[in-house]
Structures are given as C-alpha cells and as structure tokens.
C-alpha cells in the first residue's frame, strides 16, 4: 500500500516548494512479542519476552513499556541501566530522537541493538495499521504524540487478540510520557500512561534508579525570582547574527575565575571578554553562544584575581555573590588596557557532557538536595538530588546536567554513577581518562566478534600471497615489558657487496578489515593510550599482544619495507611487500646493546645488529646535517611497586645507542612509505606534517639566551640545530638540555593531514627536516598507520582498496579525530605522570636540585631534572605571606632581593611537598632552600643528600609511559618518547 508524504519547505531563496515523497505502508512488520501467535515471526525478531513480570508497585499485571520521545531524550541514563526491559520503541520516537540529539541517538541505538536488553523497535511509520496522517492545523509534535498513542492502541489490541486465542494472562502496554496532555489523551483512549518519575519510583526493588531521574521541568515553575536574564529565542538570535547585531562563538570559561570567560568569535582578532554572572548568563564551557558586544565605554579588561566559587549555602544566594562580583569589578577597573567586552544573550548549542567530580557535604542532614563540585574548574557547580548522599561522600561520581532555569543559580543535573573512592588510584585513572575524553570501555561483543578464531593458523593460501621471509634472521628491539611489538629489523650482506635492510611491521590491516565494527572502534580510539601503570588498547588484546605482535620464534604476518643500501647507507632500491616472518629474538634495548658491544658474539643476530647500528649512525649524521632537531623534554619513568602499584622510585630515562638505531630505521621506513603513497595517491595519502613555527614563538628562547651572553639563530631548523649544538656553559652541565627543553616549547604540534588538502611545501616536517613524512611503523597502537598500510597495500596490489579510503572529506574528518585523540592521549599521559608524582610525594618531602626556567613578574618557574617536574615559587602576591620584597627587572629578566639575584638557568635547591588541602586538586608546593633569603627561604634540613642520589639502572618491571612532547622523538619508538 502506498501513500504520498506531502510537505512544504522553504528554500534558501525564500521560495516555497511542495515536496512529494513516496511512503510505503507494509503489512509484514511484526510486533516482536513472544506471546503473539498472529505474526509469522522469524526467530531473531522475537525480542519481547513472553511473560514480562512486573516489578512495579504501580502496575500489578505483566506489561510492556512504550516510550515517548522526551522520555528517551531526558532519561536515557535510566534506560542504560540494566533494570528496565521489555520496552517498545516506535520509529516515530527514534526519528525524533535522531533529529534532536545525535548523542542520545547513539546511546539509544546501542541499547536497541543489544538483544539482552529486550528493547524492540516497532516501525510504526511504515505499518499499515499504525501510520497516521497529520491533520490540518495539527502541529507535528501533536501528530507524533498521536502516532505513538496509535501504536500503543494497536499493540494493546494486537496482544489481546493473540492472548484470547491462547488463553494466556493479559499483557498490558504502558505508555511512559512526561507530557501531561499526552497522558490525559492516552487515558481517554484507554491506554494506561504514567510519568517516568512515577513509574521509576514504583520500582521498589531499585531505589538507586531514582537518583538518575532527570529533573527537567517542562512547566514554568514557581514564583522564584529569576537570577539570570532570559535567553533570546532561536529566531531572534538568528536574525541578530544575520544583521550583524550579535555574534556567534564558542564560550571558554576561565580556569581561575568563575565569573569570567571568553568567547571566540571568528570575526574578531581577540576573544570577547565576558564578565559577571549576568553577562555569563548560564553559558557553560564549550557551548556555542550568541553574544552582544557592549558599547566601548563599558569595556573591561581581564582581571588577575583568582576567584573560586566558595559559596556555602545555596539559600543566601545574593549576598556573597555580589561581593565576589564587586571584587571582580574593582580589579578590572584598575587596569588601563581595555578589551572587547560583551554579554551572552542566548545559547545556540549546548555542549554538555557528563562531568566527574565530588559531592559537597550538605549541612542539612537528610536533605535530598546536594551540590556537586566538578573536577574541571571551568564547569560550574551542579545541583542534584540524591537519597544516597551518605554513600556518595568521598567518592568520585559522574553527574549529567539536565537544565539551567533562570531562577536557579546553579544548573540542575542528576547523578549518573559512582567511579570509586576518592584518592584511589583506579578511580583517579578513570577520572583522567574521562576528563580527557579517552574511550576506555571494554570492547563490545560486536568488536570481539571480528577477531579471528583461535587457534589461528596460517593457510597455504596465505603463504602463496606473501613473501616467505621465515628463514631470514629478523629480530625486534623494544623496551622491557613491551607486549605489542610492532616492528622488527634485519640486515644481511648481498653478493654484490650491498646491504639489504628490512623493516618489518606488524600487518594489522590484515586483521582489521575496513568497515567492520573493530575498524570503527579503532578509528574512534585512534591511538593506544599509555598511562604510567595502564595501557588502554586501541585494538583488542588478542591482536595487540598476540596475533599482530611480532614475538620471537613464532610465525607472524608482516608488512615489509626492504631496502638495498650501499656501504654509505645510500638507498639503491626500495621494495614493499607483505610477508611471513619469524622473529629470531625479541630483544630489549639493553640486551641488544650488550650483544652489539660483546666482541665474542658473532652469530647472525649480532652481525645483523652491528651492521644496522653502523648504518643508523650514518643515517643519523646525515639527518642532523640536513637540519633535524635534537630536542629534549624531561622524561622520567616510575618504578612501580608490584604489590601496591604505587610508585616507589622515579628516575630519568636513559637512552642507548640501540634506541636511536631503531628510531633511524623507523624514520627511514616512514619517509619511504610516505613518498610511495604520495606518488601513487597524490590526492588521498595520509601524511604527517610538523609546521614551521612562527618566529615570534622563539622570542622567549632568544631573550633567555641573550641574558646568558649567547646568540641563537632561529631563522631555520638547521640554524637552530647548529646554534643549540654550539651553546655550552661549563659551569652548568644542564644548561644545554634546558635550552632544548625551551626550544621544544616553541614548537607547534605535528598533525596528520590528507595530501590533497594542502600544497606540497606545507607537507614539510620541521622537526625531522623531512619534506614528506607519515606514520607507518606502529599500526598496533596508532590508527593512522593502519590507513597508511591500506594505502600502501593498495599501491602494491596486495589488497583491494575501498571507497572510503579514497574519500578526501571523510579522511580529513578522520585526521581531525586522530589529531584530537592524539593530543588528548598525550595530555592524559601527562596527567597520569602528574598523578603518580603526587602519589609519590604523598607523605614525603624531598629536597632537590633544580634550575630556574623562567623568571616571572611575581614568581620563579623551577625545573627539577631528577623528576622532570616543573613548578612555581611565588615571590609576591597572595600566594606568599612573606614580607620580603623582590625587585623585578623586566629588562634583563631577573628578580632581586638584597644581594641575591635570580636569572634564568640559575641553579637552586628547593623542597618539594604535597599540598592536599584541596582534595580534588592536589598540588606540589615548591619552597626555596638555597640560595637562602632571610624571611623567605626555609631552613635547610640536616640530612640533605641531593648530589649523590645514584641514578641506578634497574630494569625491573617498569611500565611504559607515553609522552609525546618533542617532535623528533615523536616519530621514533614508543617508549623512548611516546
């Protein structure tokens, strides 16, 4: 049966179009219930159980639930709980949800696709008996509500008919809707309807569900005084933006001051400043907002006060607020430099997510209303209702924001789940993963289904398709404890005197086929995230640590890049092919170094390694001659107690010759592959570039060096590299390293991109001084490498390509995600190091040697090489209570106090301890010991031993850490740098 959908649409030019679409109505859509005897179901269609026992005190009979759109949009947290089942979701609702919120839609789809949950999708829109036309003057909302009720009636009749035939007990259909009007109409039509709140509260066995109820109120409520000015309507905002009266931008809250924020508006060079509660008008960090710029006379400047929202009792709202605001105004009006200031008049798009944080103890005992303090300082406090507050104190919890009405000072939200006890390592790891948006849930069944079944056997066909390299002496060199080995090397002499060098990379793209669930998951995760004591895999462990990992003495698939080189490491020939290899040894850097150095060893592995090492040295020299930068960042590794998992020792990382050997060949392979795929797919190759930093970025470096009496040339990478090499200071061995650390900070981030989106000169990789570069060598832990593998496979005809591989737009989007995830993984890694440092310093203070990295107006920034730490000693201002006066000299960047002068790079001795006064944000405090300043420095303790802290080399179970901070290492091997 057929009907036509007719609707009118206005196009961009203002013409009204009548659009006619076919809409087929079917008779072969089934109800999905096991108690139905009418529908000829296929087995997999039977989702709703035969006897849905009621757990609700409200309804005694067995029943199915049928949901309204708003119910799903607001209460998705409830439905994600494993409590409610036997739920019917009609197509009308799914379409509406999809239209209104993609986030919720995705979550809904996950629930629907899980057969264990018994959620059935009923395609009412295409069912002959349940399709309805929109009536004249009926709004589309009303029409949809009616369609949902119609489906409910149909179900009820259908089930009754079926049950009459079988004489079974009655199964009801219950409509859940929060819309009072809809409920009334449903009752009139003979369907039982309840609000979610009532229904959930009637589930007496599951009281915890109540906390997850979303507290959105649809009715205009109470006579409370509005705290905030109203938001404009969408139409008003749209018209205002169009006419240039208002501007659109993304809102960024200030970390230091809760009454201040900035809006990034594209057409202004500077951010638009927003100050004060009313101007902020309920915007939350990340929202897309509509701003109105104030007249110039009202412009203000960013205040330098730190304001934290400390208001105790939500009752006496207005008093303290005004005080804060007064402070803010005063501090702002003192300044001369004015900045464009505006106020927010509407929210175009909310970017709410779920927030981690803690519950603030409520003074009123037994009250259900509580204040939630997010871990992220940019997020305002959230008001939630919970009955299990006692349980939630001292726990990290997750809360979602529901709405922010005008009369409420704080947004209203609801409790989602508990992460774990405060201060617990697992919990804190979880928090930092969530806050850095790292997908870290277990792999879904769908993903695991993509794995090959065990035992995994290489078939004859595989041998035929691949080059057999099993008899070649290949070995891998990795950090200790590494289980995801994605590269192996070999070299051998050829009869013509040249050397054959091979880099063999795990053939992950053989296992992860494009378009599968596993591929999508990997693309989403983009990278394996290394925390100090944990690894969040990009692909399931079976692949990462077994089937793909090039372990010793097992046959594995590899993607090989084989060069023929002459004695001077010039490439004569390059070939790429898929292969089967059998690594003869999985070595650590240390073991490999020992083999190379041991003159008595002369087996194949030793010869091969020595050969490689020699070539690597030539390659490295050549690369540095070309202007590649050798940068530095303080890198440390933690020795973890195997029992408690707490860090017991921190030490700086050590680099050996073998690290650089592996790195050189990885770089070479990456460059070779980049050239190949770029040649074959000039438009679609996925490459990596490191943009040349603008000269202004180097200013702090140049200034700092000038005061030490040196000159540094930053005009090009090569010049910079040479200058860095030439500056040494005899009395300060750490000086050069510090310079390199500073230079690293001047750099921009390296990013992935698609070759067709940029011009050739922009491909340049600054840190490596390579005209073209990509990532090929770590497909187990980076998704970009998988794409590069697929491109290369398609170049050499080893694999077919597929549509999305050659889709510039889709792949550019993919690159954006990869870059974002990489950045986040990096931050998460750093946060993990910080967390472990804090754990390390809990209950301990230490006195260590450090260097002044920067001299600031009111503080010194200190670097502690031993721990790779950086911190601040405040000299003046509200963070110190000393009466000592420091004199800041802006000209030559120094701080003076009496006879003591601080310059950049000066050595100091500081005491480190942990400040735990703020439970959510512990921080390390630095106190000056030496040089001693009366009234400022603290007394030296007697048992100081700093200089002879032995840098012992223990190779025990240290875990890897990921930290991508310097471009030159970034490319290299995992634990070295990332």
């Amino acid at each position, binding site marked *: 049966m057929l009907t036509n959908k007719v609707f009118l*649409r206005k196009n961009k030019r203002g013409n009204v179009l*009548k659009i*006619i679409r*076919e*809409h087929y109505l*079917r008779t072969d859509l089934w109800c999905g219930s096991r108690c139905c005897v009418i529908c000829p179901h296929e087995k997999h269609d039977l989702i709703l159980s035969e006897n849905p026992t009621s757990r609700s005190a409200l309804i005694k009979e067995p029943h199915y639930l049928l949901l309204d759109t708003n119910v799903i949009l607001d209460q998705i947290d409830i439905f994600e709980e494993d409590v409610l089942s036997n739920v019917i979701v009609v197509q009308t609702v799914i379409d509406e949800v999809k239209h209104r919120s993609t986030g919720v839609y995705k979550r809904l789809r996950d629930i629907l696709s899980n057969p264990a949950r018994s959620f059935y999708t009923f395609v009412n829109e*295409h069912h002959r008996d349940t399709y309805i036309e929109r009536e004249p003057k009926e709004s589309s909302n009303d029409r949809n509500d009616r369609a949902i009720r119609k489906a409910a009636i149909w179900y009820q009749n259908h089930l009754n008919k079926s049950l009459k035939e079988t004489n079974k007990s009655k199964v009801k259909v219950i409509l859940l809707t929060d819309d009072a009007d809809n409920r009334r109409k449903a009752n009139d039509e003979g369907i039982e309807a309840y609000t979610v709140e009532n229904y959930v509260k009637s589930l007496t066995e599951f009281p915890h569900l109540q906390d997850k109820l979303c507290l959105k109120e649809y009715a205009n409520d109470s006579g409370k005084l509005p705290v905030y000015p109203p938001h404009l309507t969408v139409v008003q905002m749209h018209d205002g933006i169009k006419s240039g009266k208002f501007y659109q931008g993304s809102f960024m809250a200030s970390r230091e001051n809760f009454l201040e924020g900035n809006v990034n508006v594209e057409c202004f060079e500077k951010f638009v400043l927003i100050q004060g509660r009313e101007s902020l008008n309920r915007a939350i960090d990340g929202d897309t907002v509509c701003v109105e710029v104030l007249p110039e006379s009202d412009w203000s400047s960013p205040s330098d006060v730190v304001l934290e929202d400390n208001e105790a009792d939500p009752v006496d709202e207005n008093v303290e607020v005004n005080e804060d605001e007064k402070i803010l105004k005063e501090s702002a009006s003192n300044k001369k430099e004015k900045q464009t200031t505006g106020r927010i008049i509407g929210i175009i798009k909310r970017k709410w997510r779920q927030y981690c944080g803690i519950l603030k103890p409520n003074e009123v005992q037994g009250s259900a209303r509580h204040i939630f303090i997010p871990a992220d300082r940019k997020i305002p406090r959230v008001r939630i209702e919970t009955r299990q507050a006692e349980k939630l104190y001292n726990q990290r919890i997750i809360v979602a924001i529901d709405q922010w009405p005008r009369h409420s000072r704080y947004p209203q939200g609801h409790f989602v789940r508990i992460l774990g006890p405060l201060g617990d390592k697992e919990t804190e790891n979880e928090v930092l993963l969530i806050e850095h948006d790292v997908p870290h849930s277990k792999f879904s069944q769908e993903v695991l289904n993509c794995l090959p079944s065990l035992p995994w056997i290489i078939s004859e066909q595989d041998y035929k398709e691949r080059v057999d390299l099993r008899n070649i002496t290949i070995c891998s060199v990795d950090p200790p404890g590494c289980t995801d080995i994605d590269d192996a090397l070999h070299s051998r002499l050829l009869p013509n005197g040249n050397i054959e060098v091979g880099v063999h990379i795990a053939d992950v793209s053989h296992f992860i086929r494009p378009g599968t669930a596993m591929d999508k998951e990997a693309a989403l995760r983009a990278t394996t995230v290394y925390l100090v004591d944990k690894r969040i895999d990009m692909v399931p462990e079976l692949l990462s640590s077994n089937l793909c990992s090039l372990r010793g003495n097992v046959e594995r698939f590899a993607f090989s890049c084989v060069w023929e080189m002459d004695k001077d490491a010039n490439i004569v020939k390059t070939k790429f092919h898929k292969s089967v290899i059998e690594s003869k040894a999985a070595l650590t850097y240390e073991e490999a170094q020992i083999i190379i150095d041991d003159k008595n060893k002369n087996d194949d592995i030793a010869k091969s390694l020595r050969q490689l090492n020699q070539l690597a040295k030539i390659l490295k020299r050549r690369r540095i001659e070309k202007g590649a930068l050798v940068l530095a960042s303080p890198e440390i590794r933690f020795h973890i107690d195997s029992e408690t998992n707490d860090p017991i020792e921190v030490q700086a990382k050590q680099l050996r010759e073998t690290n650089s050997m592996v790195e050189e060949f990885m770089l070479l392979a990456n460059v070779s592959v980049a050239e190949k795929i770029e040649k074959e797919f000039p438009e679609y190759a996925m490459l990596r570039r490191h943009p040349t930093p603008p000269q202004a970025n180097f200013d702090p470096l140049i200034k700092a060096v000038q005061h030490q009496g040196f000159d540094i040339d930053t005009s090009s990478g090569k010049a910079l590299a040479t200058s860095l090499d030439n500056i040494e200071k005899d009395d300060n061995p750490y000086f050069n390293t510090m310079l390199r650390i500073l230079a690293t900070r001047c750099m921009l981030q390296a990013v992935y991109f698609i070759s067709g989106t940029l011009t050739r000169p922009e491909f340049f990789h600054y840190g490596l001084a390579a005209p073209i570069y990509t990532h090929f060598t770590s497909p187990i832990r980076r998704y970009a490498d998988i794409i590069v593998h697929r491109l290369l496979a398609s170049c050499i005809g080893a694999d077919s390509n597929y*549509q999305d591989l050659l889709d510039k737009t889709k792949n550019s989007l993919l690159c954006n995600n990869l870059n974002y995830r990489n950045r986040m993984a990096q931050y998460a890694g750093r946060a993990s190091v910080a967390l472990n440092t804090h754990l390390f310093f809990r209950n301990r203070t230490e006195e260590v040697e450090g260097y002044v990295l920067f001299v600031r107006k009111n503080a010194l920034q200190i670097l502690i090489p031993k721990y790779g730490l950086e911190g601040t000693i405040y000299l003046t201002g509200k963070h110190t209570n000393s009466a000592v006066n420091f004199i800041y000299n802006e000209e030559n960047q120094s701080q003076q106090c009496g006879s003591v002068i601080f310059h950049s790079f000066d050595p100091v001795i500081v005491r480190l301890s942990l400040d735990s006064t703020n439970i959510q944000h512990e921080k390390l405090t630095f106190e000056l010991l030496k040089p001693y300043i009366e009234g400022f420095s603290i007394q030296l303790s007697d048992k100081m031993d700093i200089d002879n802290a032995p840098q012992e080399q223990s190779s025990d179970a240290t875990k890897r850490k990921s930290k991508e901070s310097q471009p030159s290492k970034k490319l290299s091997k995992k634990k070295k740098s990332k």
Partner: protein
Amino acid sequence: MVQDLLSAQGLRMDGRRHNELRQIQCKLGVLESELFTHKNRCDGSAYMLHGNTKVIASISGPKHPSKSSGKKDESFIFNVRVKFATFSKNGERQKVLKNSKKLGEIEINLKNIFKSVILVEKYEKSQLDLNIEVLQHDGGSEICTIVNTATLALIDAGICMKEYVCACTASLTNDGLALLDVSHLEEICGGPTLTIAALPRIGDHEQSVAFIELSQKFYLKDLNKIFDCCQLGCEKIRTILDEAIRGNAYEHVNSDLTSN
C-alpha cells in the same frame, strides 16, 4: 544530509525493503489515434507511473520518410524526441531539462537501445518516430522509466522487436548490500547508481544488456552484486510490462467480440 540508506530493521527511507521496486502502473493505447492528422498520426502509445515519475510515450510510424527527416542513405530512420514538461520537476533543486546536453544524451541512448532491439530489416526505407513526454519526474534515472514506457508504446504500435527492453537501477549501501530501484531521495543521499537496460532472459535465452550507465565510483568487487540486482529488477519489470500488455490485448479482444 547523512542518512542510512537502510535502517536496522531492513527498511529503506520510503519503507521498501532492499529488493523491492517502487510502484509501477502502466497503460497502453492512452492516446486516441483518430484524433491525429495523417501526417502526425499516433500508431501506439503508453503511459507509465514509476514511483513519482510519469511518462507518456507515443509512436508514429512506420511511415514513409518525410523529406526533411534523416539522411537519405539510411535505410531505417528512427527519430527520438524527449521533452520534459515545464511543470515536471519535483521541487528539490532540479532543473527542467531543456535542449541541454543531457537531454541529447538521453535521446542518443534511446536511439541506440531501440535500434538494437527493433527488427530493423522489416522496416527498410521507412521512418519511425518516438516521442517521449515526461510529465513529472522524481529525479533519479528518468531514463529507466522512459525506456520501459517506450517499450510499451512500441508494442502497442505493433513494431516487431526481439524482446522487451526493461531498464532498472540499483545502488549500494555502506554495508555492501545492493538496493533495487533507487529513488530520488536515495540518490541524493549518496551511493553509486548503476542503470541498465536489458533484454531479460526467457527460457534458455541469456539476458543481454543493451545499455549500461554508472554514476560515481564503486569497487569492482561490488559490480557483480549490484549488476545481479539490476538484472533481477529488469526481470520483475518485464513481468509487470507483460501483464499490462496481455491485459490490454485481452481487453481489446473482449471489446471487439462484444462490439461484433
């Protein structure tokens, strides 16, 4: 507009399953031949509604070649004219095809398709005119509906042909499932479209393809799948055409019998 071509329940945007055609209604002999003058007589006509595309085709001939038409040395002159009515568009960013390159392309394609099917040797030194009027078109491969309508019209005019020519389109979802008979909405949502005009197989006859057209790229490995889907569609369409023709003939015989 990013939408799934196929929902989780296996339904397309308009409610069809992946292997279902849109509605097809057709009728033969829709134009009264008596109404036309001798020169512009109509010897056969057909109307078809396929989805939201409406086409009328009329045949004039076989007849003596008019002096102006065609080249003299051509033994069989076959003229095709396609017109899109000004009101035919369905609103969504379509232009009415008028003297455009695309229109010319359609005409040439039609000419080639039917020249290969009509038993040309029977009509030496004569002329055949095929006029197509697209009354409403729902975007997509209008050439499909045109070919099917023209087939009906030719049969109505009693022109000898080897076999019915049926045309059909197919597309591909992201999951690699072939979709039969692409609607306009599905076409603008992306996905490649393959159009074929085929002589469906009957009995031992292998199916042969008279025309094939491809929009966008897809992978060679998918070609077979999508091609099979198209062929299946052609066979389904043949059944529908066949029914219409037999029904029409039956009606004629009946009415002749009753009038006699």
